[in-house]
Each structure stands twice: as C-alpha cells, then as structure tokens.
C-alpha cells in the first residue's frame, strides 16, 4: 500500500490549517502575558518572537543631576534600565530625523550642548553653559530588541490587582459546588436505580426534563428567595453557601442523570447477593457502589468543577462584587471594562484564570472526555 497519496498529504495539510487557526489565539495570549507591559500596548505579540526594531522616545535628566568637570557641565545617565538584549542602533534629537546619528557620533542641540549615546543606552550630555531646565531634552532611539520574556506581569497581577484573592474565591465557590451535588446526587441516583418507591418514574422524568431547562428560568425566583431569607434572618442575601446551593441546583439534573446511567450498568446480582447477606442499602452504597463508581465520579467531578470554575452568570447574580467574594471571571470582566487598556493585567489575569482548567485538561483529559461523551447521550 502506498503510504503517501495525494489525499493523505492533503488531509494532513488541512488538519494542520485547522490546528494553527485553533491554537493561534491562545498562543498569542500566552506570549502577551510574558511580554514587557510597555511593549504590549505598542506592538503585536507576534513581533515578540523575533528580534525587532523599535523606535522609542526618552527624556534625559534635568539640571538637578548635572556635575561640573573642568569647563563643562555634564549630565550622565541611562535611557533605560538594564536590558541585556537591547542594542541601540541609531538615535536622533528631533522627531523629524529620529535616526540621524550613529552610535558614538556627537549630536549637537540648538543650544550648542552635545550628546553621545552608546548602544546600551548610557548617555553623556555636556555643555559649556550651566543646564537651567528642570527636565532634560528628548532623544529618539532606534534599537534592536531580541525576544525577551518576563514573569513581572504575573508577579504584579497576583499580588496587586486582587486576582490572587479572586482565584481563592473561585476555588471556594467551585469546590463545594462540585462536592455537594456529587454527594447528594449519588444517593439520589442510587435510590432512582436500585430502590422501589412510589413516584420513582415521575421523578426520573422530571430529571430528564430538568436537563435542558435554562438556568435563566430560575434566576429571578431564587434571587427573591435569597433576599427574603436574608431579610428574615438578618444575614447577607448574597453569600458563599447561597452560590453553592445555586450551583448544586443547576448541576443536579445532569449529575443525577450521568450517575444513574452509570449505576444502571452495574450488575444487579451483586446487590442481591449483598442484600441476602443482610446488608442495608447504606452498606451496599458505601462498600460496593462507592468503590466501583470512582471513575464515574472523576468524570462528573471534572465536568461540574469546570462548569463552576468557568461560570460567570451565577457568580455575578448570587455574590457581591466585592474583593472578598468576587470570582475570577467576574473580575476579568470588570478589568475588561475598567482597565481595558492595561493589557498586561488582562492577559495575565486571563491566564491565571485558565491555570486550573488547563491543568485538568492536560492531566485528566481521559476522564474529561469520558464525561462529555457520556453526557452527550442525553440529547
């Protein structure tokens, strides 16, 4: 059999195109989050991957830092902080001719003062007359900047912008919102599968119907309940337990449905044998069902956890938008609005919010996919 046919090359190319289109947006964000924050706003992220020519404007120091040496007044300094890769190619002293002078050449201002700049950004500005202005003059530089990446943005965002706290808040929302439905639904699904009682079929039909009910149907009534409850007992209407229960409510149908599908596939004989031995339903649940259900639990845990972690609407409606309660997605949305031009905060914040999902994605992909595939059967 021929290994390389035209159609196989064609399909490889086509798939490659898809892959590139799909990965570029995320890749761009990742690169951006590692870039210097000043460069972020003035050049595209793709320029960070190669050595690029950048034009910049700097201002030299003013009269305060002048020293007198023999006949001259001298101001020395650095245009930019140490940046090992950055090399100035040429410079200028007017905005019309920004690369008039080579490195080492002497540029003369209108007031007869002279300046030289070396490639690392050190400048020497001297004049016969005393410097009298508070601010120094502007110089224009053209420099080559190799790819350079930094974790500064992460440091700044995690500790200064409240993203770190939002991360913890999200965890405090998502963990119980995943564990509580898993606990109560496993008993529920067990009862629906292995116990006989009046109204079981109706209950099952209600679960199937609830699978597709949009959560918008519940928002207003639940918000009202929470407000009344808060007023009645003198507690805050918006709180962590409130969000947990809301997420539990919205995830209940799918969690129960998935668990029941799994339990149904277990052999009946096992339960019967245990019952004959005098085991109660609770014994059976703890000693037989629970150990067998670990893989199913893992899949459902991941699905529900990601859903809660990534949710915006529930966190927006049922939590106060204050630092001690705001979740990551709401925080990001807030930054998008108020700090839309502070790209370093946005990109880094977005990446921080993705760490857990991406970890789950790469480490537990098998369970994630299994859950999704099992869940899709419900359509």
């Amino acid at each position: 059999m021929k290994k390389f046919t035209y159609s196989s090359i064609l399909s490889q190319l086509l798939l490659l195109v898809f892959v590139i289109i799909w990965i570029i947006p995320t890749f761009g964000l990742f690169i951006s989050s590692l870039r210097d924050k000043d460069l972020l706003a003035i050049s595209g992220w793709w320029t960070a991957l190669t050595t690029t020519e950048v034009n910049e404007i700097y201002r030299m120091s003013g009269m305060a830092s002048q020293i007198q040496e023999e006949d001259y007044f001298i101001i020395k300094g650095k245009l930019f902080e140490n940046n090992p890769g950055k090399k100035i190619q040429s410079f200028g002293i007017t905005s019309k001719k920004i690369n008039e002078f080579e490195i080492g050449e002497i540029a003369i201002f209108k007031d007869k003062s002279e300046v030289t700049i070396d490639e690392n950004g050190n400048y020497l500005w001297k004049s016969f007359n005393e410097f009298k202005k508070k601010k120094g003059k502007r110089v224009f530089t053209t420099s080559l900047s190799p790819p350079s990446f930094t974790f500064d943005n992460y440091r700044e965002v995690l500790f200064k912008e409240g993203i770190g706290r939002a991360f913890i808040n999200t965890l405090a929302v998502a963990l119980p919102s995943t564990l509580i439905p898993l606990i109560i639904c496993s008993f529920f699904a067990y009862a629906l599968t292995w116990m006989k009682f009046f109204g079981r079929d109706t209950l099952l039909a209600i679960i199937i119907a609830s699978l597709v009910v949009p959560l918008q149907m519940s928002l207003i009534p639940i918000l009202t309940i929470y407000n009344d409850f808060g007023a009645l007992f003198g507690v805050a209407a918006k709180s962590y337990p409130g969000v947990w229960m809301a997420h539990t409510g919205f995830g209940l149908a799918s969690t129960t449905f998935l668990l029941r599908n799994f339990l149904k596939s277990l052999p009946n004989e096992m339960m019967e044998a245990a019952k004959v031995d005098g085991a109660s339903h609770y014994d059976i649940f703890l000693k037989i069902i629970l150990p067998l259900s670990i893989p199913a639990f893992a899949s459902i845990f991941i699905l529900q956890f990601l859903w809660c972690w990534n949710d915006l609407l529930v966190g927006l409606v049922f939590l106060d938008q204050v630092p001690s309660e705001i979740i990551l997605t709401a925080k990001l949305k807030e930054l998008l609005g108020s700090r839309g031009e502070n790209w370093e905060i946005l990109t880094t914040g977005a990446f921080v919010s993705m760490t857990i999902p991406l970890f789950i994605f790469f480490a537990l992909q098998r369970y994630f996919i299994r859950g999704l595939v099992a869940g899709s059967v419900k359509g």
Partner: protein
Amino acid sequence: MSLLNLSLIVFLGVLFFISYFHISNFVLDRFGQRSNNRFQFENSFRVIIFILPAFIVLFIFILYPVFETVRLSFYDKFGREFVGLYNYKWAVNDPEFRRSILNNLGWLLIVPTLSTFFGLVIANLADRIWWGSIAKSIIFMPMAISFVGAGVIWKFIYEYRGPGDTQIGLLNAIIVSFGYEPQAWLTIPLWNNVFLMAIMIWIQTGLALVIFSAALRSIPKEMIEASRIDGASELKIFFSIIIPYLEQTILVIWTLITIIVLRIFDIIFAMTNGEWQTGVLANLMYDWMFRGGGDSGRGSVLAIVIMIGVIPILAWNLYKHRQEQKI
C-alpha cells in the same frame, strides 16, 4: 472574610452533607434492628433519607422557579400586581427585544451548524493521521477555558487601532499588511455578531470533535476498507458511509450545542455588553433583572422566551425516555 474563615465554611459546608447521610443512616441501622417488620419500615425511611436533600434542592432551584417565573411574567415589576399580558406586549414592541431575538436566531442557526461541521471534518481527518491525537487535543483545549477567558483571548485578535498606528490585533495587522484600512470589528453591525460567534465556534468545535471521535470508532473498519478497495474516494466514503452512519450522533451534538447557545451570555457580556446591536435574550434578561431597580415581570418574560426554545428538545427527550422505559 478572612481566608481562614473562608476555608472553614467551605469545609463545614461539605461536611454538613456528608454527616447528614452518615448520621441518619447510622441511626436508622440502629433503630431499625429493634423494630419487628424490619424491612418495610427500614426501606421506606431509607428512601426518604436518600432522596430528600436532592429533592428539596430540585424543588427549590428548578421546579418552583419554573412556575414562579411563569407567574411573575404576568405581574408588575415588583411581582405584586397582576398586569395580564402587559409584559408580553412590551416585549413584542420593544426594538431591543426584537434585535435580541434575531441575534439569538442567528446564533442558533450558525454556531451549532458550523461547530458540528468542523467537529465532524476534523474528527475524520485526525482519525487517519498519526499525529491526529495531538491535533485533537489542541482543538479540544478551548473547551476547558471560560467564556470570559476566551473573550480576553479573542480581544487580541479583534483589537483595533487608528489607521496610522501600529496594529496590535492580529486580524487588523493582517489586513493592513495587504493594504486595507483597519476595522473596528466589534462595532460593525451585523458582522460583529459573526465575529462573536466565531469565538463560540472556536470553543464548541472541541465538544463536537471528541464525541465524533468516540462515535467514529463504532463504524466497522471492514466497511471502510472494503469501499477503499473498491476504489471509493475519501470524499465519497465520507458522504456515503460516515455521514449516514453518524446521523444520530450528528443530531445529538447539534441539539447539545443548540441548548448551550440558547443561553449564551458570557461572551457577549464580556466583549460588547450588547452594544452595537449584539445583544441576545440572556443579556437583555440580565439587564432587566437590575435595570431601574430590577423588573421581575420583563425579566421573566425574557426567561420564558429562552425556555420556549428548549421545549421541543425537552419533549423529544421525554419521548425517547419513555420509549426506553417500555423496552
């Protein structure tokens, strides 16, 4: 709230539910042994213990709200006075509502169709190529990211700078390099909807992809091999064997994505907040929940309109469920 308190209430919250089941079952085990007709007594109590928490949650968070929302849609903004069809009449005459309905329809038409289509094509391509599973992983990855995160990611694609400036958005950088004027993509009416949908397609294709990949394995290899030997082209195999074989799966995925798209909120809320005519029903509803102190009547009408969209799917699910029960 301090971090210590926070972790404490998280711990207690989860512990509460575990102890409920453990203690109540423990008491029943002890108590049940003393009663005479043990099994009947024990079983009926056990059922109650097992289903009660889930049932209460189901009732408070799904069943009651559905009826309450329907009721509220006939009441004024505070939910106090009966106003008949007033809120519905408002909706029909509201230009924002009409715009949202049209946008929602656009989303429903385009996103599930394209996501399903791309998912099917990619699953097929990846199935036959040695690096296919890596490709699948990459295309599936957006599924793990939040809609807001995806919004930030795509902001870097759509960002706009004035004609003279350096473009830092990829899309504008590309068209400028071809000599065109840069565009503020998200503000061009009608087209901006398409640009927002692209984000959703980018996310949901992964869902379609993994489900199709699983389904593809169920197609007998011999059938495809046989038709290859008979000289059928790959395209012919795709249309004559694979698509008919996966018909059921295609329908399932299409409905699944339809349900997700119907309640789409985050992407639009984060990217445009419904401005430049990009609003959809869920955004309008969120708006009315809080606008002018909140209007529960109008908000409820909007929720019901979203609900009406899923009713055919709901009925179909129940029908299929009943068929299964009969077997």
